[in-house]
């Protein structure tokens, strides 16, 4: 194992983490402000990817697709907020879980209805094709670096939005005291729709960016959704900072675990066995990480104020 390989794997971990952050930030924001648990967040990720792929196929431009993914996911988010989600804020978590579970079924089957069963094609824009050299001699894909950069920008933008703007002030107020902010005359319904659409747009953006790396297909949001849950549970539900730290932690542990565990085991057992057992352990690793963190801190690393 060389130093260059280790650096490359660390970057991979960060890139996965950034992706998870885009998903987790929306989830945790929606929970923090509205107290809602949204299983359909993965569907918005899928909506973003499908919008990007179809617009890119029509116009030939990935960038237009990216804009479309933001718009489509935000619109889909606002639409379900107004028609369905709004009725759930006063309900218990059980009803929320169930209603958003139903939304997953509707979104998945509806998307297949519109786009068919075959995966869509979405390519990386020419500007970001190929790989660049890293110090130490390794090569790294430009596109993955771009994802890391985009994630960092979004994280910074969210920070600025929440701590510096009027909307952010209301979001913070909504997090600490829901009744009070309504009493102060803020249009709480519009605020909630805005926050939900913002979270949806972030998920859509993540879906579009990842869609170019993977395959754009129905059901693509579900594995990511569960990882994002793990992230916000580790970070502390409702905390954006927690989501960022949790996402980077999960990204790195997952990537390094997949790569190091089989190698470590290979010192003890035959290589094909090491691959099998190491692979099995690596796929459970982040859940073990989560269990350990929760055993020590039941409300996550950065518990939001109750």
């Amino acid at each position: 194992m060389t130093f260059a390989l280790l650096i490359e794997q660390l970057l991979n971990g960060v890139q996965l983490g950034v992706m998870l952050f885009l998903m987790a930030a929306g989830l945790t924001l929606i929970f923090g402000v509205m107290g809602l648990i949204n299983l359909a967040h993965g569907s918005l990720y899928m909506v973003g990817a499908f919008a990007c792929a179809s617009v890119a196929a029509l116009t030939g431009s990935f960038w237009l697709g990216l804009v479309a993914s933001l718009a489509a996911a935000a619109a889909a988010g606002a639409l379900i907020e107004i028609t369905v989600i709004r009725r759930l804020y006063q309900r218990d978590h059980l009803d929320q879980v169930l209603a958003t579970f139903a939304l997953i079924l509707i979104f998945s089957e509806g998307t297949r209805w519109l786009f068919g069963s075959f995966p869509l094609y979405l390519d990386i824009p020419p500007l970001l094709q190929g790989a660049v050299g890293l110090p130490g001699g390794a090569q790294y894909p430009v596109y993955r670096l771009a994802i890391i950069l985009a994630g960092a920008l979004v994280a910074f933008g969210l920070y600025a939005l929440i701590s510096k703007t009027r909307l952010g002030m209301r979001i913070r107020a909504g997090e600490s005291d829901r009744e009070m902010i309504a009493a102060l005359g803020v249009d709480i319904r519009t605020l909630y729709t805005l926050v939900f659409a913002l979270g949806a747009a972030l998920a859509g953006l993540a879906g579009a960016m990842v869609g170019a790396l993977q395959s754009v297909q129905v059901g693509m949001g579900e594995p990511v959704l569960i990882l994002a849950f793990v992230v916000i549970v580790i970070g502390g539900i409702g905390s954006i900072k927690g989501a960022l730290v949790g996402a980077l932690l999960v990204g790195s542990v997952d990537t390094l675990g997949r790569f190091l565990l089989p190698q470590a085991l290979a010192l003890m057992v035959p290589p094909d066995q090491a691959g099998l057992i190491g692979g099995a352990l690596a796929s459970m690793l982040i859940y073990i990480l989560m269990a350990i963190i929760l055993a020590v801190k039941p409300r996550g690393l950065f518990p939001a104020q109750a």
Partner: protein
Amino acid sequence: MKRENAINLVLLLALLATPFIAQAMGETFTVTLVTRIAILALAAVGLNIALGLGGLVSFGHAAFFGTGGYAAGILASHAMSGEPMLFGFEGSNQMPVVWLAAAIAAGIVSLAIGAISLRTSGVYFIMITLAFAQMVYYFAISWPAYGGEDGLSIVLRNAFPGVNTMRPMEFFLVCFGVLLAALIFSALLRSSRFGAALQAVRQNEVRVASIGISPMPIRLTAFVLSAMITAVAGALYADLNRFVSPSMLSWHMSGELIVLIILGGTGRLMGPVAGAALFVVLEFWLGGITERWQFFLGLILLVTVLFARGGVIGLLAGKERHG
């Protein structure tokens, strides 16, 4: 007799009578379908102890359902091959032994998961149970000994003394018997001191703690009991399909179990039975009409949650009076 009790009785009798009528009309498959209803209802009766009675929204009960299924599959495969298992246990194809093993295995797993998860509450609890179930799911997929993702076939259903379980009707009666026993147990539990304590913990944890009862052991006991019943359902489900696979452990399964309870009516004794019946009939009927049945199932679920919160039993029996 209270209206809800009357409805409960009618529901049970209908469940029992349908297979006999279907059998007489030569519709053997309906018997299989009703057996499926009984088994899913049993799993949901188990979940309902944690969810309805204890207010513990477990989104990971598929882990226990699957554990039960694998207990049945693994014991049967060892009984077939004659090889001893880990720690020298023998395989078995006797249902009572299989059920006991399923319950014990799920008891151990749920004790571990519960001990960590119950330290948290609310949304944390929902997500943690989900994540632990995912962990078990990935373990089952990657562990090569018992088929991994391909799952494990049981060629012949496990045996019950005096019954030919390969005959749909007789297997149904076994399942119905277990469901009835679980319903009676669940009813007794509700009215017991333990049940009262559990509901008190759900309604006001602080007050219970202040009179010197620690909520944790009560919740953990309820969680483990709930897991054990769900595991027995898992074992029967494996026998019904003569097959177990990690898909029994998937998070969709956890979601479906919750769906059954809500469809039937949360917190109602017979909610799981009504919910399971409605769900299986919907799945079968919609599936026959359109390939897009999941879309319409989603719509129906959504409408139920938004506008018919009491579920089937709520619609039939009116509002529940909270004690």
